[in-house]
């Protein structure tokens, strides 16, 4: 074994010192020959050197390099075809690598927990209706055969008084959390069983980001005691830091929700997630868990539907999945079109090289050698394309990764930077490239191995223009047209849907509005009136600085929670409920149709008032006598809900669509002053004069009015419109894909027609000589192209019918099978395709083809 390794190393050594070795051998032979009395006895020196070289076993490499040279020369000879093929491949592979990187970054494996596919969220009731009580007592021990860990946590905000005053996120977790999510400590240690004992010392693990930000990544923090205060600052706890959490460890539905402090939860809590044992069926698990919940549950609603489970990955990618699926499918479609297109080009190239193959065969090149040269040619083409596309993808991804995260509304589980060209993506691209290489090599191989020397050299019709090859070409082109049409239809439908979304009247104007969240430490405002007074002061100060400011309980772009509304005439309906401050309608440009908006007279203690949306007013009082009438609300999500007090209607405002798909335009606005929030408030602000940057001025404004109030989550309101941005994103991507594939299909059909025209030059010349008009000749080729197009269109329509279902959830105001869109897309492709056939045919018909007859 050792000698084998030593021999191998010597071979490698030789490879790297080849030139020197060969020179020494040449010198040695020269010396030998010089000393020989009769130099002729030495024999063929070149052969001696060749045989000596062969001993080292690298001759195959020389042959390969030689073949590669031939392949390269041959690629460069027909530059236009090579260039088109290369460009198509680069486009296709770049699309696949880039979309592959995005899809992988959001895949199940990307969740930062061991075996993430075993993790499932537990939903005790659907969103809205109230949940059964007593769920913290679930008998997990008796469910041990299906659930290995029940994971529970409770989140709170804390302050670190010894450090900056920024609030930190404390997560109290049970042992199931630590074990079930595989919490590890890169520095220090994890939480242990002893830490969960009721009389144990107060300990915590420090979040990685906080550790870096506040403690400069100092490892000596482990073992130290830090003071952790409640947000009000009235309760201070001494906590020993035992370790640091891994970078990027998060909890929840967004990888930006990192944890600052992780400490043991010493009371029983409701598990929000479970880790399954291997091989557990979620549907059966739901049945078992629901049955177990019934044994311990209290106040179980009569219509309780049982426990539902959702995989951690599905929950993370909820809303994103259809986008990712559509993009993957579209990029696979483009790649297919690319491959088909290149297959056609490569086949045409091989046909043009048939004579060369024949000459080489005649000169003694074996079929194997020819096949190898063709293989190298294809591999060179795909290899270069692969390399270039990986470089481009890398650049594209590094620029677009943050954009992708914003457009999809949520960064990848391992953060924005994980959307990149990692090993997995590179391997995937290389595998695809290898498969393409093999697929592309088949046609030329067949041509090379079937090349008939005599026929090819005589310029006669040979095996390669046989019906089988023509049929193959037609099939490839039909596939190309079909794929392009499917993409074009998908893209056109999405564009129309995006247009509908962009032009829909939402009933409000979010332009330039900045939103932010205020946090009120408990000791700042003694009671609700003081909070309301603060809101008014802030609103007035903002106005003095030429900024409109309003408060509301629920931002647009999210459906407001539904409540049952009962009118004083006995009518009931459901409506979204929003608490809004005085200037809310003015700020959002929501028209006041009747009566008045809220004003300073509306306060705690005064008559409760509401403003209704036009739809709701119409629904409750069809006769229109709305002002001064009364309604009350019943919260459907709360347990033992009792109707609220009666509220008087003071005004009616225009309808608002919170999201573009919001069909529930019945909304109740309550006075913010009468329902002031306790701890947090969401505000909206818009600059009323050019040159004022509301987002920049807001923190200073808040600080000046009340320095103890903290302001966070400042962002442009439009950024909250995730549905629209995802749709725009998908539309943009699909447009790029569709344009690429249609261009390729048109090039493919055009190139084939041009080639066919060239091949049939003699026939055209004879027809012309016999008096055929230009139109008749053009018709000949256009009919042929029309056949391919027609077949492609039929196949493409069938493909679209099944593929378009994926887009259904993303469409707004347009049917998946919208006839006008499909017709326009199909006709466009047909016209482009026919034009690409007509052009080369027309050129040929105008030329004097008589030369084709005399060339022999």
């Amino acid at each position, binding site marked *: 074994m050792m000698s084998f390794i030593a*021999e191998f190393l010597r071979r490698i050594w*030789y490879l790297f010192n080849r030139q020197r070795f060969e020179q*020494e051998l040449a*010198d040695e032979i020269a010396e*030998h020959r010089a000393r020989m009395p009769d130099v002729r*006895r030495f024999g063929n020196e070149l052969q001696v*050197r060749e*045989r000596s070289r*062969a*001993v080292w076993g690298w001759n195959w490499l020389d042959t390969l390099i030689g073949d590669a040279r031939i392949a390269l020369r041959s690629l460069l000879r027909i530059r236009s075809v090579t260039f088109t093929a290369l460009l198509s491949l680069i486009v296709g592979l770049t699309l696949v690598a880039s979309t592959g990187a995005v899809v992988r970054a959001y895949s199940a494996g990307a969740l930062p927990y061991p075996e993430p596919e075993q993790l499932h969220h537990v939903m005790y009731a659907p969103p809205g209706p109230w949940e059964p009580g007593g769920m913290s007592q679930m008998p997990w021990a008796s469910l041990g055969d299906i659930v290995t860990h029940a994971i529970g946590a409770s989140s709170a905000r804390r302050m670190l008084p010894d450090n900056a005053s920024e609030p930190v996120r404390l997560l109290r977790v049970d042992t199931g959390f630590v074990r079930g999510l595989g919490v590890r400590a890169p520095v220090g240690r994890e939480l242990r069983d002893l830490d969960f004992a009721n009389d144990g010392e107060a300990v915590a693990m420090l979040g990685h980001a906080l550790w870096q930000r506040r403690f400069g990544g100092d490892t000596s923090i482990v073992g130290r005691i830090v003071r952790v205060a409640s947000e009000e600052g009235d309760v201070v706890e001494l906590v020993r830091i035992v370790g640091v959490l891994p970078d990027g460890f998060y909890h929840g539905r967004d990888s930006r929700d990192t944890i600052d402090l992780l400490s043991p939860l010493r009371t029983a809590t409701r598990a929000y997630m479970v880790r399954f044992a291997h091989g557990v069926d979620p549907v059966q698990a739901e049945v078992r868990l629901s049955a177990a919940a019934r044994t311990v549950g209290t106040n179980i609603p009569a219509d309780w539907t049982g426990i539902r489970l959702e995989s951690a990955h599905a929950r993370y990618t909820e809303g994103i999945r259809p986008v990712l699926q559509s993009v993957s499918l579209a990029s696979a479609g483009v790649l297919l079109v690319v491959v088909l297109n290149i297959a056609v080009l490569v086949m045409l190239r091989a046909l043009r090289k048939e004579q060369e193959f024949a000459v080489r065969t005649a000169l003694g090149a074996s079929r194997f050698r020819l096949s190898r040269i063709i293989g190298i040619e294809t591999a060179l083409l795909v290899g270069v394309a692969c390399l270039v596309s990986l470089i481009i993808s890398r650049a594209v991804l590094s620029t677009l990764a943050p954009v992708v995260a914003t457009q999809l509304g949520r960064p990848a589980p391992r953060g924005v930077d994980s959307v990149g060209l990692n090993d997995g993506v590179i391997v995937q691209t290389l595998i695809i490239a290898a498969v393409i290489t093999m697929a592309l090599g088949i046609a030329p191989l067949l041509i090379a191995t079937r090349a008939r020397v005599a026929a090819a050299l005589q310029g006669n019709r040979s095996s390669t223009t046989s019906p089988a090859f023509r049929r193959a070409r037609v099939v490839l082109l039909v596939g190309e047209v079909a794929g392009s049409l499917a993409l074009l239809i998908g893209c056109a439908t999405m564009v129309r849907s995006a247009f509908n979304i962009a032009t829909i009247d939402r009933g409000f104007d979010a332009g330039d509005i900045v939103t932010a969240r205020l946090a009120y430490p408990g000791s700042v405002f003694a009671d609700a009136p003081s909070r309301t007074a603060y809101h008014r002061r802030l609103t007035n100060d903002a106005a003095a600085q030429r900024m409109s400011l309003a408060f509301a309980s629920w931002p647009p772009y999210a459906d407001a929670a539904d409540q049952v509304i009962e009118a004083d005439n006995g009518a009931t309906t459901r409506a979204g409920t929003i608490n809004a401050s005085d200037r809310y309608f003015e700020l959002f440009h929501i028209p006041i149709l009747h009566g008045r908006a809220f004003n300073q007279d509306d306060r705690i203690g005064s008559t409760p008032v509401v403003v209704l949306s036009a739809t709701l007013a119409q629904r409750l009082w069809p006769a229109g006598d709305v002002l001064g009438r009364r309604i009350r609300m019943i919260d459907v999500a709360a347990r033992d809900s009792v109707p609220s007090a009666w509220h008087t209607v003071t005004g009616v405002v225009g309808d608002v669509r919170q999201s573009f798909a919001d069909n529930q335009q019945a909304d109740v606005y309550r006075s913010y002053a009468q329902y002031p929030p306790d701890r947090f408030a969401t505000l909206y602000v818009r600059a009323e004069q050019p040159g004022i940057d509301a987002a920049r001025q807001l923190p200073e404004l808040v600080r000046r009015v009340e320095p103890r109030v903290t302001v966070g989550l400042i962002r442009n309101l439009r950024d909250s419109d995730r549905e629209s941005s995802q749709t725009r994103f998908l539309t943009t991507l699909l447009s790029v894909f569709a344009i690429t594939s249609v261009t390729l299909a048109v090039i493919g059909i055009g190139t084939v027609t041009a080639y066919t025209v060239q091949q049939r030059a003699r026939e055209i010349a004879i027809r012309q000589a016999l008096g055929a008009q230009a139109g008749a000749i053009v018709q000949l080729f256009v009919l042929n192209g029309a056949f391919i197009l027609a077949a492609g269109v039929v196949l493409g329509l069938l493909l679209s019918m099944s593929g378009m279902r994926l887009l259904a959830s993303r469409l707004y105001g347009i049917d998946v099978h919208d006839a006008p869109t499909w017709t326009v897309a199909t006709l466009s492709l047909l016209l482009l395709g026919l034009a690409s056939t007509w052009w080369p045919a027309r050129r040929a018909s105008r030329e004097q083809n008589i030369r084709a007859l005399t060339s022999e």
Partner: protein
Amino acid sequence: MPRDDGLPPGTLVLLILRVLSTQPLHGYAIAQRIAQLSESALSVEEGSLYPALQKLLLKGWVKASSTTSDTGRAVRQYRLTPAGRKQLDIEHARYTATSRGIALVLDLA
């Protein structure tokens, strides 16, 4: 057509190793030495000598070092390595056994 060198098949390596066991030599000298020691009964064909020397280098049985010949040319001089010496013993033993066997058969026949 290769000339008849008088070498029994498979013995070239043995002979090279043997002549190198006494002193380092360059290619031409190896051929000369074999011819000289065999009283011209054996002549090494150059077409076989150089590939054989490459094989010995590859196997690690000899080492080459650059030196200057009497004529002033840079030539490689081959020297036996410990592995080569071991190989010489093996080849020698194998040859002795083979030739003894052949002799026995010839004597009995």
